[in-house]
């Protein structure tokens, strides 16, 4: 069959220093009518750039130097801007990564839809309104007519994404470019959006360019996958083959560095460093993956291998030696968990934690509104034990963390640290708290003071305990850096001079400064790419082995919790609905919500059939009020 979209040898360059660097190099891809091509890779791989290329919205000063992009027998690259705009929103639809901010905040759904349908040539305001209502109904949004008068901030992320999907399918496009359409959503909403997209595409015969960082998700929903690294396609293969038998060293790493919910529990293989940025690409003559490749040798620096077909339908950008060499496999290093019931010292005890938020009525100030954010949550944490708290946003898991840290005062219940009661305001037990419990912040970018050097940042907690001489602090800083896998010379750097992974290590080093007994980590790896995430997860596992540290890990990512945590608490609407040993809970969940959460995660085993419909429908039957 003839391809719907054919990208042929495209090179896109950007200015760096005096010259230009290829941010996309020799891209060859094709999408069949009605087919689904997955573009998989980490941030900076160039996968979103391909979506922007199709839309003709490259960043300023980026330029297509070579190649063609044939869509339905017309070259999108040579086409005048006005003609291309005629195709966009009509024959080519887009679904964005951030649905909530992709709807104009000062215009309601109805006005955006009206504008969109007017561009499509639908005459008459009443007719456009009727079509908009029908389109919103088709994406299963409740009360579509009243939705037209609402704004993005009044809707959930999933609802915003449905509105955008409804808009994209209003013209029954031939091609849909979906750029990480479910990354900003929780797992259950992700399954529902994926199911919806699948249904609509089958119904209208729409082909999809599906951009994602999640290899397992791509393997389930795509026909073919192209793995991208540093602006190149490094491997192309039928989707299931790529997940089960990845051939390029990077594809293999991508799979073995992300934890999974099924299969044996093994230590993650992490890649060193991070993906080269624009500046680093400028000085790179050979293979772009070589600096991080576990099997690279002297031949790689001068030679950039071409993308070659080495079996029917399987393309790999690799030299002969790359495919024959043995890579460190996933199971090589046994992953040891701390002894859960080992009778260790009790580090943290929470009993009957309850938090009610009271807000005032806007006009009638004597009226109060009460929201029970956390209801009766209890747990005990021993030294060296890792506890995971999972649940979707709004389930109360972050409120639990804030109470443990003393940032919120519990409405009822007790918190004991190392046997000492610290319930109440932070200031009442400040000394005990700073010594015993510390927080690892979610976003290291904003948690590290940009005007301080790393040595000063990681020893910041020493300022609380009392004044320490600088040499003493510097010595402590070097020790902390060594423990978190950072080079000693990093002490002199500013946060802006570090990569995302390094910043998160600094963030962790700071939390360890006063050798606390308990760490609280709220979504600390959710902003990181999988290869960097693996480094951080392994670092936390090592810290448990070396120190008797206890960790409360708050995460929406079940596989991360499975990898690190001995025990898990599942929270739903403020309540702990299920609790137990992680393996036992995940193998045989009892509560329907835990079951729904687990079913929504795409499996690692390609032979395991995953249907997003069943994952999402179970939940909607049991709780129709849950966010759609």
């Amino acid at each position, binding site marked *: 069959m003839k391809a719907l979209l054919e990208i042929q040898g495209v090179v896109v360059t950007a200015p760096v220093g005096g010259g230009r660097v290829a941010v996309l190099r020799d891209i060859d891809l094709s999408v069949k009518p009605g087919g689904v091509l997955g573009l998989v890779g980490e941030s900076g791989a160039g996968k979103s750039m391909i979506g922007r290329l199709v*839309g003709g*919205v490259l960043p*300023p000063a980026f330029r297509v130097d070579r190649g063609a992009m044939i869509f339905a027998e017309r070259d999108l690259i040579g086409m005048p801007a*006005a003609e291309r*705009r*005629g*195709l*966009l*929103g*009509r024959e080519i639809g*887009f679904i*964005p*990564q*951030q649905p909530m*901010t*992709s*709807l*104009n*905040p*000062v*215009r*309601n759904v109805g006005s955006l839809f009206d*504008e*969109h349908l007017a*561009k499509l040539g639908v005459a008459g305001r009443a007719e456009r309104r009727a079509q908009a209502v029908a389109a919103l109904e088709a994406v299963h949004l409740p009360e579509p007519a009243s939705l037209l*008068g609402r*704004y993005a*901030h*009044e809707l959930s992320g999933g609802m915003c994404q449905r509105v*955008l999907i409804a*808009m994209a399918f209003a013209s029954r496009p031939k091609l849909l470019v979906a750029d990480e359409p479910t990354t900003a959503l929780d797992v259950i909403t992700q399954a529902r959006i994926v199911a919806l997209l699948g249904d609509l595409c089958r119904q209208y015969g729409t082909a999809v360019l599906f951009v994602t960082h999640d290899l397992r998700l791509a393997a389930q929903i795509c026909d073919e996958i192209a793995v991208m690294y540093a602006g190149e396609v490094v491997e192309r293969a039928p989707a299931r083959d790529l997940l089960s038998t990845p051939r390029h060293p990077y594809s293999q790493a991508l799979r073995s560095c992300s934890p999974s919910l099924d299969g044996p529990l093994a230590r993650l293989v992490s890649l060193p460093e991070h993906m080269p940025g624009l500046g680093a690409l400028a000085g790179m003559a050979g293979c772009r993956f070589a600096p991080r490749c576990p099997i690279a040798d002297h031949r790689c620096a001068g030679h950039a291998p071409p993308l070659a077909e080495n079996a029917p339908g399987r393309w790999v950008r690799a030299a002969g030696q790359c495919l024959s060499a043995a890579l460190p496999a996933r199971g090589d290093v046994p992953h040891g968990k701390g002894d859960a019931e080992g009778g260790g010292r009790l580090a943290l005890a929470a009993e009957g934690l309850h938090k009610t938020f009271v*807000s*005032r009525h*806007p*006009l009638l100030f004597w009226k109060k509104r009460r929201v029970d954010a956390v209801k009766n949550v209890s747990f005990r944490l021993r030294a060296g034990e890792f506890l995971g708290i999972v649940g979707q946003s709004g389930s109360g898991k972050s409120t639990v963390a804030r109470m443990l840290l003393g940032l919120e005062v519990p409405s009822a219940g007790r918190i004991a640290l190392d046997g000492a009661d610290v319930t109440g305001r932070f200031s009442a037990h400040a000394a005990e708290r700073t010594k015993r419990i510390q927080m690892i912040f979610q976003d290291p970018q904003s948690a590290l003071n940009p005007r301080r050097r790393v040595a000063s940042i990681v020893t910041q907690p020493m300022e609380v305990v009392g004044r320490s001489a600088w040499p003493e602090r510097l010595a402590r800083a070097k020790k902390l850096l060594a423990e978190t896998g950072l080079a000693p010379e990093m002490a002199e750097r500013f946060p802006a001079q570090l990569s995302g992974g390094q910043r998160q290590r600094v963030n962790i080093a700071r939390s360890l400064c006063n050798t606390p007994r308990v760490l609280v980590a709220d979504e600390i790896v959710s902003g990181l790419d999988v290869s960097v995430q693996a480094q951080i997860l392994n670092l936390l596992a090592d810290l448990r082995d070396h120190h008797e540290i206890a960790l409360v890990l708050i995460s929406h990512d079940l596989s991360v919790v499975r990898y690190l945590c001995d025990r898990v608490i599942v929270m739903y609407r403020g309540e702990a609905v299920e609790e137990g040993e992680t393996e036992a809970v995940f193998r045989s969940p009892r509560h329907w919500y835990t079951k729904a959460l687990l079913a929504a995660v795409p499996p690692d085993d390609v032979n395991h059939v995953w249907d997003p419909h069943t994952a999402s429908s179970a939940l909607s039957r049991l709780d129709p009020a849950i966010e759609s």
Partner: protein
Amino acid sequence: MSGGVLGVALRRIGVSLPLVFLVSVLVFVVLRLIPADPVAMSVPPNATRAEIEALRAEMGLTLPIHEQFWIWFAKAAGADFGKSIAFAQPVSRLIGQALPATIELVVVAAVFATIIGLAGGLLMYRVAGGRGEAASDLASTLIMSIPEFLWAIFFILLFGVALNILPFTGRLDAGITVGRITGFLLVDTLIQGRFGAFLNALSHLLLPSMSLALGTAPLLMRVLRSSLMEVGNEDYMMMARLRGFSERRVLVHHAFKNAFLPTLNLMGVQFSFLFGGTLLVEVIYSYPGLGSLMVQAVANTDLPVIQGVALVYAVAVLLINLGVDLAALMLNPKLRIAK
């Protein structure tokens, strides 16, 4: 939804009322503290001590200070500010004559400032990154660094004296009289169908209002430009482009409404300053408004007039801010959430 709008609006108005009261207390107290004795100014130089005391009692100045305030406040609430010492007329009549002139001047200046500010902001955004950027930066900085009274003098010299194409004193040419209906000349002349007089009044407004507008517009330009730049990186802008809308449509229908919100807040502040700016500009153009009245009253230490005009200024600033807040409420749906 509309209940939310109404609730927020009512709350905003509810906050304004105590503010008016506080301002009136402040005006009253400050004018009691300055070393000016209204009795001494009202009696002949050869008055006896007994006569002075009698007048003091008659003017109510022997009462305790809070009773004096309540009497003044109760009357002021009914627009009775007492009698001017210098003009021997009720203060409310003086203000009533001058206020429409000043409102007319401020409104026309605000319209000019808005047009220049928004058009200039859009222009600066379009030339940003290109060759015109340095020139537009220079021009806006230059305009911004010149205070409005300097513009006033410059315009008089250029358009009034050198080119001699625009009038620069008063509200109308000497030969023209317009019957008073509302006090707003632009409105009255139109009601009476006197188109020539309308143009004459407008030409008198042109220079003073432009002087005021040029003191206000450059900041609006800059804020609009930088908000447009911020908005340019938002996801919904990319989404609008990806749905195939032209750059012009994206700018006008998607970027502008969002970028206008910070500009609107600034307009509230700036238009309040505009009222204060009339003080100098009115004197320079011999424009018979509140500013001129205030300057004369200060020169004569005419306390009742000063009190009255100061209160009118304060209420005007509160009203402008209230108006801007309500406008923001109409334009920004996020403000309408009743928490």
